[in-house]
Every structure is written in C-alpha cells, then in structure tokens.
C-alpha cells in the first residue's frame, strides 16, 4: 500500500510539472493571464507531491516496512531511530527523493516571490525551466531509480544501512545541507536561461536571484566542510580531503559558483561580463548534474561506495541536453549581450575580478580534468592510470596561492582606474605584515615554499581585512561621533555585503593556513602495546589502559581505552574502536580524536588483541586541524551577514557651530550607489 501511495505521489508530481509547463507555454503563446498564473501555481503541487512521497518513505522506514526494497536494503529492525530517519538519503533512490523535495522548495520560493510578476515572460520561462528540471527528477524516480519498488518475498529483517552511514550524527546534516547547496543553483540557472530566451539581459535577473545564489553557495560551502569533517572524524584515515572523485564532484560547482559571486559584482557595477556570468551560471548547474553522474554511475573509483545503477545514462543525457541548450542559447544570443562598459585599466577592481575568475575557472578545469582523466587515458591507450592527490596538490597549490594574493590586494583596488600611488599607499602596511610573517615563519623553522607563501599571503589578506574594518569604523566616528562598538555595528549593517564578504575571506585565510601547515607538520606511527604499556609520539604519550566489547542490536563494538597525556598533563581517555555489523564481514574502524588548538591526537585501532594480548594503535598527530572547522564557521557567519538586509542610513545633523569643512563620510568602495566616491586616501 505504501509503495502504491509513494509511487502515486511521484507520478502526481510529474503530472503537475507537465501541466504547469504546458499551461505556462500556452499562456506565453496566447498571452493569457489566467494560464500564466495557473502554471505558476502548479509549482506548489509539485512541492506537495514531493513532500508526500518523502513522507511515505519516512513512514515506511520508521515502521520498518521491509516489503519495500529500499527499506530492506537501507534499514534493519535494530537500526536506531536517527539512522532510520536519515535512511531517506542513505542510498541512490532516496537521495533523488530528497533532491526532489529540496527542488520543490526552491521552486516554491521562486513562485511565491514572483507571484506579483507572473505575467512577466522572464518569470514564466524561468518557472518552465525549473519545472523541466523537476520533471526530469520525477522521471528518474518513475523509471530507473524507483524508491518504491516492492520485493516479491518480504525478508524477515532488513540489511541495514551501510555501516559507515550509521555511526556518526553528521549523517543527519551533511547530505541535506550539501543538497540544499547543489539544488539551490537551479534558481540562478532558471533565470539565466529565461534571460537568454526572452532577450532580457538587463540586471533584473541578477538581483532577483542574488540572494538565492548566495544562500545556495553558503549551503554548499558548509556542506563541503562538513564532508571534510566527516572524512576526518568518521572514516579513520586521518585526513580530511583526498581529491576523491565524489569530493571533486561537490567542489566543481562550488568553484564556478564562487567565480560567479565575484563577477556578478562587476556586472552590477559596470554592466560588464554578462555573457560570462550567464555561462558561469549554466556551467554551475551543469556541473551539479555532471557531479551527480560521476558520483552515482560508478564510472570512477571512489571511497564513497555507491552502488551502481542504471541511472548513469539518464544523467549523462540530461547533462548533454542542458549543456547543449545553454551553449546553444549563448551562441545564438551571446553577441548581442556585449556590454558598453570597458575595462579602463589593468590595475582596477574589474581586472582583479577578471583574474579571480580566470583562476577559479582554471582550477575547476584542473579538478575536472584530473577526475575524468583515468577514463580519457583508457579510451586513448587501453590501460587505466590513476590521478590522485599528488597531481591535484601540485596543480592546485599555485592557483590557490595566486587567489590568496588577489584576495589580499583586490579590496584595495578602486573601480575603473587609479594611480599607482593610491594602491601602493593602501597596500603598504598589509604587505609589510605579510612579508614579516613570512620571515618569522622561516625563522621559526618553516621550510616549505608553498607553506611560507601561504602564511605571508594569509597575513597580508588578514591585515587588509582588518584595515577595511578600521576604516569603516573610523569614518563613522569622524562623521557621526559614534562609539567604536556602535560604529562597527552600524557600518556592518549599512554595507552587509562588503563586511560579510570580508568575514568569509577571513575564513578562507584560516583554511588556507591550515592546508599549508597540516601537510608540513605532524607525525604518524603505529605502536603495538600491551595493557599498561605506553608509547610517545611527538611529545604525546599514549597508554593502553584496557579494552571492552559492547553489543547492541545494531552492532558489536570493540574499543580500547587509551590515556593521552602531554608531558605531565593528562589530556583525557579516548576510545578508538572497531565495530562489526551483522551484515558486513569487514570491521569498521572508528577513530577517537583529542582536539586541541594546536594539535589533534588522532587514534585508530588497527587491530584488536592478538595472541599476546597486544593491540596495534595508529597514532597520528595532526597540526592545527581545528582551525579548518573554525574557518568554515567564519565562512558561514560571513555568508549570513552578507545576506542581511541593508540598514538605511538615517541622516544625522552636524552641529552648526562647527566651522571646519564637513568631513567626507567614509564610503566604502563597494557600496552600490552609482555616485559612490572612492575612499579618502589614508
């Protein structure tokens, strides 16, 4: 019964999408207001259908209904409630269901936000595009990826989720947040296609979707960071990024989206780069589909063990159709989009953003090429080769350092053109701070080239960020006499995009520094200990206290208690473990980590006691890892700040007996008012 209900819900959603598309097309052709409104409203039906289908699946999971194949494969009667609920996205079919729900949500947001503009062809075409995407995913679920397939013989108990997907609470957050990011890029894509089709290339579509794009970007950023955290805390190999194809699949749209967020500012200010921005938006969406294809089709080796399915050809075809449509539209309309604006000088904010985009595009190309290259090599040569971490690190590091440099220098560059002196004055102190930091790092013993460059450029960028905040506060204090705290608050609120962006950049600096430092420092040793024995690795002493076994319905866990101490100071007792699940022969290791501000002590149980009652313990000392997560938090906070609405400036009267000339209020160069003056040179 549940299977029929669920499948009917999916079919209803597909039907609603078809009806909506037809109504909108007819409405556009016939210029019929009623049809356009009706078509828009079909979006709500699509959302309701998706929620209903997901609801039925959750119901089936929670009630352990093993007559459904998906439930039998991803749930067992002993599975705890949390992992039963997260079972919705534990495997392919369910995650398509999740995708549909989130897509329905974003489409509803668009349909609701533009309800007063539904007679506008731009909005209508955008919604048609969105409904086509929704229809595709519904078709997947009606066809090759049917989550509601039934089993002819109902098993006594289900297989349970993959062990790796049921031993950490992050399972509840990482996939949904990642999808909120991925799917969100459908919104700017919809409007980009609509702009191309209707010929309305003005800035309307950009500002309409700006918030949605930033929200999607924020979620994708957090999703990727959570993925790295999961890799670190759960998978047990001690690292957080392996340039695995599935990781790369999530990084690719992030790279083009980040390029887009920056170049969009140029379009808003100067009306330039319109074709490029449209291309970026289409590319980002295509990459989300391509990424899903790479992840789900099993074409490439990956640590993420997804089961293969027939969904590959469908996804690849859809990718082809979308790419062809996008490229075709740009080829058709693109040259009419050429903007009147010109880049006046090589030393300007515009050209810095162009460089930024070039670097991000190059990085995206590197990641895509490296991920797909084993397949290309096989097609050309017949034998496979591997492209792994050493390649990506070597290619990405110079690009990353160049981006770090741009991040530091660009905020000081004014729009249009400037004299070299202005830029030099603005950058002198931050650059000195960067250079001194490099020297200090070398004096303190750092010897990696990329490493010290990262420290120096990071300090340079941070100094620039602090400088912007100081100028903003100082300007308000001079003009309006506010206290520092109030000035900070009001300055931030009156230009949230600038300050939010600066906070995000600071998070990036932290992450860059961690990437540089963690590969240069750290230790990794296996030690074999009997009960009571200790070993020392890099100044940390680990003592094997004892072990025990815990049994539950879900799994059998064998853990060892390890006391960790630094010198005389005891840091705590940690318990790395190996768990075996009833339906899997391999044991799954769970690491145990002591997180410190400077070091993490990362313990894994390599083997349980052998005949001599010795255990083998993997001890890794990882440097400064915690700052990765802190950097991610800054990025998230910055995004939230950037999304905040602007505070309207309330004019304040200046005392009339003040005979000094009215000081120029410090306007940050990023305020979008067209007559914004440059910063007063300090």
């Amino acid at each position, binding site marked *: 019964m549940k299977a029929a209900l669920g499948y009917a819900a999916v079919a209803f959603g597909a039907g609603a999408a078809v009806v909506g598309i037809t109504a909108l097309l007819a409405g556009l052709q016939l210029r019929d207001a009623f049809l356009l409104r009706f078509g828009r409203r079909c979006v709500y039906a699509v959302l309701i259908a998706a929620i209903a289908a997901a609801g039925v699946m959750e119901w089936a999971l929670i009630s352990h209904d093993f007559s459904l194949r998906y439930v039998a494969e991803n749930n067992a009667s002993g599975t705890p409630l949390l992992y039963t609920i997260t079972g919705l996205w534990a495997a392919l079919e369910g995650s398509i269901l999740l995708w549909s729900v989130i897509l329905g949500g974003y489409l509803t947001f668009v349909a609701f936000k533009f309800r007063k503009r539904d007679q506008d062809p731009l909005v209508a075409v955008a919604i048609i595009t969105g409904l086509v995407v929704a229809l595709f995913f519904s078709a997947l679920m009606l066809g090759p990826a049917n989550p509601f397939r039934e089993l002819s013989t109902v098993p006594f108990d289900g297989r349970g989720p993959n062990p790796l997907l049921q031993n950490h609470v992050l399972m509840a957050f990482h996939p949904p947040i990642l999808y909120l990011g991925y799917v969100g890029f459908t919104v700017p894509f919809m409007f980009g296609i609509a702009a191309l089709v209707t010929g309305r290339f003005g800035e309307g579509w950009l500002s309409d979707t700006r918030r949605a794009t930033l929200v999607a970007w924020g979620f994708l950023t957090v999703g990727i960071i959570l993925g790295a955290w999961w890799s670190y805390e759960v998978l047990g190999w001690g690292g957080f990024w392996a340039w695995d194809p599935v990781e790369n699949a999530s990084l690719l749209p992030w790279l083009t989206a980040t390029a887009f967020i920056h170049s969009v500012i140029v379009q808003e200010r100067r009306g330039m780069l319109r074709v490029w921005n449209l291309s970026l938006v289409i590319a980002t969406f295509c990459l989300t589909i391509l990424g899903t294809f790479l992840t789900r089709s099993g074409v490439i080796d990956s640590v993420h063990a997804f089961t293969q399915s027939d969904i590959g050809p469908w996804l690849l075809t859809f990718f082809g159709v979308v790419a062809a449509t996008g490229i075709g539209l740009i080829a058709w309309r693109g040259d009419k989009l050429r903007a009147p604006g*010109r880049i006046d000088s090589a030393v300007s904010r515009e050209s810095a953003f162009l460089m930024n985009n070039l670097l991000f595009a190059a990085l995206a190309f590197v990641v895509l090429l490296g991920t797909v290259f084993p397949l290309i090599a096989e097609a050309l040569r017949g034998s496979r080769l591997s492209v792994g971490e050493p390649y990506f690190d070597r290619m990405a590091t110079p690009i990353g350092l160049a981006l770090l440099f741009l991040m530091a220098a660009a905020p000081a560059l004014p729009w249009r053109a400037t004299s070299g002196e202005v830029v030099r004055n603005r950058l002198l102190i931050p650059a000195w701070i960067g250079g001194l930091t490099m020297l200090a790092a070398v004096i303190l013993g750092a010897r990696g080239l990329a490493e*010290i460059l990262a420290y120096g450029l990071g300090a340079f960028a941070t100094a620039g960020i602090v400088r912007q905040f100081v100028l903003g506060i100082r300007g308000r204090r001079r003009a309006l006499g506010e206290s520092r705290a109030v000035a900070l608050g009001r300055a931030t609120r009156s230009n949230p995009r600038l300050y939010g962006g600066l906070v995000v950049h600071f998070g990036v600096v932290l992450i860059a520094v961690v990437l540089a430092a963690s590969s240069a420092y750290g230790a990794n040793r296996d030690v074999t200990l009997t009960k009571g024995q200790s070993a020392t690795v890099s100044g940390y002493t680990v003592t094997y206290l004892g072990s025990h076994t815990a049994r539950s319905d879900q799994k059998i866990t064998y853990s060892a208690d390890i006391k960790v101490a630094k010198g005389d100071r005891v840091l705590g007792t940690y318990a790395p473990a190996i768990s075996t699940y009833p339906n899997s022969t391999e044991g799954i290791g769970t690491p145990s980590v002591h997180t410190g501000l400077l070091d993490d002590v990362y313990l894994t149980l390599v083997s349980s006691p052998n005949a001599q009652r010795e255990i083998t313990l993997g001890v890794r000392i990882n440097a400064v890892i915690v700052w990765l997560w802190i950097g991610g938090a800054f990025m998230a906070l910055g995004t939230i700040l950037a999304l905040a609405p602007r505070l309207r400036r309330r004019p304040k009267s200046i005392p009339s007996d003040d005979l000094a000339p009215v000081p120029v209020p410090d306007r940050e160069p990023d305020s979008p008012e067209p007559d914004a003056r440059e910063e007063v040179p300090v």
Partner: protein
Amino acid sequence: MIRRWGPWIALGLVVVVALAVVLWPNGSQSPAARAHELETEFKCPECEGLSVADSQAPTSRAIRADIKRRIKAGQSDAEIRQAYVDTYGESILLTPQDSGVSLLVWILPIVVLAMGATGIVFVLRRNREQPHLHATEADERLVHREQGDG
C-alpha cells in the same frame, strides 16, 4: 623616487631573504622523508583511491615496509617506482607519469590558463583607447598644499 619605492624595495628584500632560506638546497632527503614521499605516490591496491601513506589496509602496510626495505637496500626512487609499476601496472602510481598520454594531464591546464590569460590581456589592450590622465608632480604638490599637509 626613493620615497615612493623605498618601503617596497625593503619589503622585497625581506621576502627574497625568506625565500632564499627556504629554497636553499640542503642536501638529499633523509630516508624517512624519501619513504614518506614514495608512500604518497603509490595507490593502495585494495582500497578505493587512498594512498599507501594514508591507508591502514594490510597491503598498504606491507608496501610501506617494503619501501623502507628497498631504500635501505640502496634502490633509487625511480627504481622503486619502476618495480611497482612492473608488478601492479601503471595505475598504482597516483601521479601520472610525464610521458605519453599522461603528459596531457599536466599540459592541458597550463594551456587553458595561458589561453585565458591571453584573452584577458587582449581585452585590456583593446580598451586602451582612452588617454589616461596622470597627475603630474606639480598637480600633486598643489593638492597637498591645499589639503594643508606639511
């Protein structure tokens, strides 16, 4: 001139000193460093995508021990790599070789970057139609005097 560029030249010197210290050749790597370097280049044969350095699988640990053994026996990095390629095939190396088809994966990104950079330079050049009005020294002095700077 010195006033304008002095601080920057000094900064340049600081940076050069730091870079020189880092880039100064300091003899060959220690065996442990060599071993680690090689371990990051080999793929663990029984895992999906992890390097031998990162994986805890029994085969990885065996390979780590074998690498150490070979280094001790005096084999060069190239010899060790070749030995493993002979037994396991080229796919055991995580870094594509720089010969044959593998060259593509190194060259293509550089080509793309160069094309993009050329495009940008082209765009910038095309826009140099307008004359730029640079402030002369006299102008600057005038402005400074008006602003009341000493």
